[in-house]
């Protein structure tokens, strides 16, 4: 009988299960009241649920009873849920959900930074961007000169940014200061960057107002971020008209080793293109590098990079004072650079960044009849902790130490100096809302050589004014040690600059517009005062810059236009008065255009650069630096033809600078009597590099 009862119960129970259907329906809207479409509505741990329609409506049935969780999720919204007690009565719901934070649409720290590309906070120019920029010859530094804020320069190495001298732009390799990023010095010529653009996944360029993480830079920071693990084991071979290189990437499961060697010799090129200087020995360079990267965990990465290079060159330079006795100059340079970094998330809220770098650069040779030598060195150690809090905010703090110095010798006599700079920094990016971010930070430094402290406040504000528009403001104080050539003579004081920046930008997926205005106040610049040096120099710079990039209008093509207006005056170095320095052109504009021709398998690029005349010192003019050169014009072209050679992927590369042959003059050097002068010209009027880049072991172009 009992069994019969069980049977009966079982049947009834089965019956009720079929019967107890509950209809759940309703509308899902955002907290702003707009319907949420294609949201997923579900009862947790059941198959039951549905998607909302175009009006945010939903209806579904369930046989579940009792307390259930109804979850709703949708793209760009935060998943939410409600508890329902289902008693087989129909349920009608009015649901609201919060929009989630879309990083691309969130306000960002932007003043002073160039955001031209994809990753809003990431790379500005990728290695490929740099290599395909006509006129850059794949040089990291030359490519940046097409961006607003930077001057064109061909007679001195480095980036001249917003009225700052080249020494005021510092280069950071994975956050570590790189003291000598340039190849061996040639008088009155800009040298290429030593590091290949292809070492980096991105370079970002800040023309001011940068983070407290970066010290010892008065005007600008060039931030280079190295690539992560290569995807495959490959061999790369490059043969160029100026030399060549070979490298081997070996990929292991969680690590990779790369070994490379390169040889460059400009002699063949110099035989073809007439050089300004009379080279006895054209620059010849041999270098090697080793790189090891290890992915220590899902979030951890260890990187080690070391390179060594030797360069030799010798030349005669015209002597305006004694034309019969040209000046002899030779340089045997060697350079070693080591950079090692480690980063890891200690937990979901804390991140550790640690780094070490060492750089030693030695020049030596003859200067007319004198023997000279010069050794620059820098050891840099840095540790940074980042704490992430709230949804987007973070707090960074860290400490950094630089051991820097120079030794120089002339005919057996030597002198030198050593400095230990200790610094600490703290900075927070505080997202008050998704549309308003405030960065507040400070950096303090102590120099053992100068025996002085400094404290630099930095702040930056970003306010989103529309879906794609943002206004930014930044103020910061920046300190830098005087240049080595002065420090070696005397203990001086920190040079200081205050930056005020205001920026408006509109960014869409494929178009960017920005306008930025700034004012910079320079103080304590190094100045020669009656044969000795002090920090009485001052100056200012102000300007407006425009940038427009368009990847949309032209199929398979893109272009950008940048324009910089610069008004600057300084009284520093040996200036007798406030004057515009010779490296500052009032108007600079660049148009960079790239087009891919599918049928020809060719990427072509053209860069046109204009700069108004630069001041030069004419001893016959009573006004100091009162003369102006004529304007600078240059049109450069580049072609990369993609093909296969011996069944291996290959790129045929050509870059031609100043194809139309504009006669450009950087300035003039006068004889002591002021009667004759010599123009400072580009090393050659035109220049051409051709070559082939082969990739073995990969069937795609990208390594």
């Amino acid at each position: 009988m009992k069994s019969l009862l069980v049977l009966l119960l079982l049947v009834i129970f089965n019956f009720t299960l079929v019967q107890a259907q509950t209809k759940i329906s309703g509308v899902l809207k955002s907290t702003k009241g707009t319907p949420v479409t294609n949201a997923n509505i579900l009862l947790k741990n059941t198959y039951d649920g549905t998607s909302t329609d175009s009006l945010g409506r939903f209806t579904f049935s369930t046989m579940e009873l009792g307390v259930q969780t109804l979850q709703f999720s949708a793209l760009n919204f935060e998943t939410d849920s409600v508890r329902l007690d289902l008693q087989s009565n129909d349920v009608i719901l009015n649901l609201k959900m919060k929009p989630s934070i879309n990083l691309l649409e969130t306000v960002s720290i932007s003043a002073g930074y160039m955001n031209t590309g994809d990753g809003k906070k990431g790379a500005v120019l990728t290695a490929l961007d740099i290599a395909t920029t006509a006129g850059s010859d794949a040089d990291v530094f030359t490519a940046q000169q097409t961006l607003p804020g930077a001057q064109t320069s061909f007679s001195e190495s480095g980036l001249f940014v917003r009225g700052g001298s080249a020494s005021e732009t510092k280069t950071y390799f994975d956050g570590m200061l790189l003291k000598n990023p340039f190849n061996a010095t040639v008088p009155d010529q800009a040298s290429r960057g030593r590091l290949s653009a292809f070492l980096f996944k991105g370079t970002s360029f800040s023309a001011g107002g940068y983070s407290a993480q970066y010290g010892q830079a008065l005007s600008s920071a060039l931030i280079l971020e190295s690539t992560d693990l290569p995807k495959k084991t490959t061999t790369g071979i490059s043969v160029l008209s100026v030399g060549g290189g070979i490298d081997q990437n070996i990929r292991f499961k969680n690590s990779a080793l790369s070994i490379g060697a390169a040889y460059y010799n400009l002699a063949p090129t110099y035989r073809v293109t007439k050089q300004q200087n009379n080279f006895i020995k054209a620059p010849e360079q041999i270098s090697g590098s080793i790189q090891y990267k290890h992915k220590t965990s899902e979030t951890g990465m260890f990187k080690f990079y070391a390179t060594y290079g030797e360069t030799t060159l010798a030349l005669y330079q015209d002597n305006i004072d004694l034309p019969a006795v040209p000046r002899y100059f030779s340089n045997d340079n060697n350079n070693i650079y080591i950079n090692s970094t480690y980063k890891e998330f200690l937990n979901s809220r804390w991140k550790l960044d640690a780094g070490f770098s060492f750089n030693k650069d030695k020049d030596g040779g003859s200067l007319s009849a004198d023997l000279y030598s010069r050794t620059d060195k820098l050891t840099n150690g840095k540790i940074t902790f980042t704490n992430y809090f709230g949804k987007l905010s973070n707090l960074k703090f860290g400490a950094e130490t630089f051991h820097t110095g120079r030794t120089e010798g002339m005919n057996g006599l030597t002198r030198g100096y050593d400095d230990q700079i200790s610094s600490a920094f703290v900075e927070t990016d505080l997202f008050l809302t998704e549309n308003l971010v405030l960065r507040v930070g400070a950096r303090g430094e102590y120099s053992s050589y100068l025996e002085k402290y400094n404290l630099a406040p930095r702040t930056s504000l970003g306010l989103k004014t529309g879906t794609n528009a943002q206004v930014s403001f930044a103020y910061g104080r920046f300190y830098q040690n005087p240049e080595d050539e002065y420090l070696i003579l005397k203990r001086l004081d920190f040079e200081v600059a205050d930056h005020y920046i205001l920026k408006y930008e509109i960014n869409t997926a494929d178009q960017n517009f920005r306008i930025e205005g700034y004012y910079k106040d320079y103080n304590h610049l190094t100045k020669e005062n009656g044969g000795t040096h002090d920090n009485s120099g001052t100056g200012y710079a102000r300007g407006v810059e425009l940038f427009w990039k368009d990847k949309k209008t032209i199929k398979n093509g893109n272009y950008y236009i940048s324009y910089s207006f610069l008004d600057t005056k300084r009284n520093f170095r040996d200036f007798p008065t406030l004057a515009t320095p010779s490296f500052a052109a009032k108007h600079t504009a660049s148009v960079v255009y790239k087009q891919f021709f599918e049928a020809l398998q060719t990427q072509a690029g053209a860069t046109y650069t204009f700069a108004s005349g630069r001041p030069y010192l004419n001893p016959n003019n009573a006004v100091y630096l009162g003369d102006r050169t004529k304007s600078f014009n240059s049109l450069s072209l580049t072609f990369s033809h993609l093909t296969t050679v011996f069944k291996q992927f290959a790129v045929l590369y050509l870059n031609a600078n100043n194809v139309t042959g504009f006669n450009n003059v950087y300035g003039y050097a006068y004889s002591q009597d002021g009667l004759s002068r010599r123009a400072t010209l580009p090393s050659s009027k035109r220049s051409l590099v051709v070559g082939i880049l082969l990739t073995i072991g990969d069937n795609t172009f990208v390594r």
Partner: protein
Amino acid sequence: MKNLTNSLLLLLVVFGFSSYAQTGQSKYEMGVKKGLQMVGAAQTADDYLKTSNYFERIAQVETKEWLPPYYAAYGNLHAGLSTNNKVLQDQYFDLALVQIADAETRDAENSEIYALKGYIQFMKMSVDPQSRLSMIGDATASLARAETLNPENPRIYLINGQNTFYTPEAFGGGKKKAKPILENAVAKFAIFKPATEIVPAWGAARAKALLAQCN
């Protein structure tokens, strides 16, 4: 009487249990099958998003099965392919990548998962090829992994052929290069027998259609 009742009870219990067992198994199988019918009928991005939602609902119950997140990813991939809005495409493909990663955690050694992953990665690249060229490498690596795990999976060759088909000749692609890969795909589809009714079986028609365009 008691015997009869007992027998009846036993019968009912056995029947009920077996039918329960069957529904337990078929609830999942039937669920996936129903979803596959939705996928078959889907035409617009919205349709595909709904299939993706549907498979996500199954995925949160059947936490050990790789097919629900696989098909959820498949739905988002096709939603992205059915829209011209690049911002949306990016979002759909990103979601698809998250879902295929979920499938990967459920079955780390499955050729089908890496094949689909290679497909999504390639499409993610093609939203903005100029700045995402390096993602070709990711796609190639996923497809290579899929091939190691099961070289008989025809979808690897379809996706590989399709990626090659849409890659400019200059970058190692083009119709000429895609043709032999797609021929291989069609040949593999001809002998491919899905293990069950619910495992991935899509792609044969697409492979033929693409191959026809190569000629």
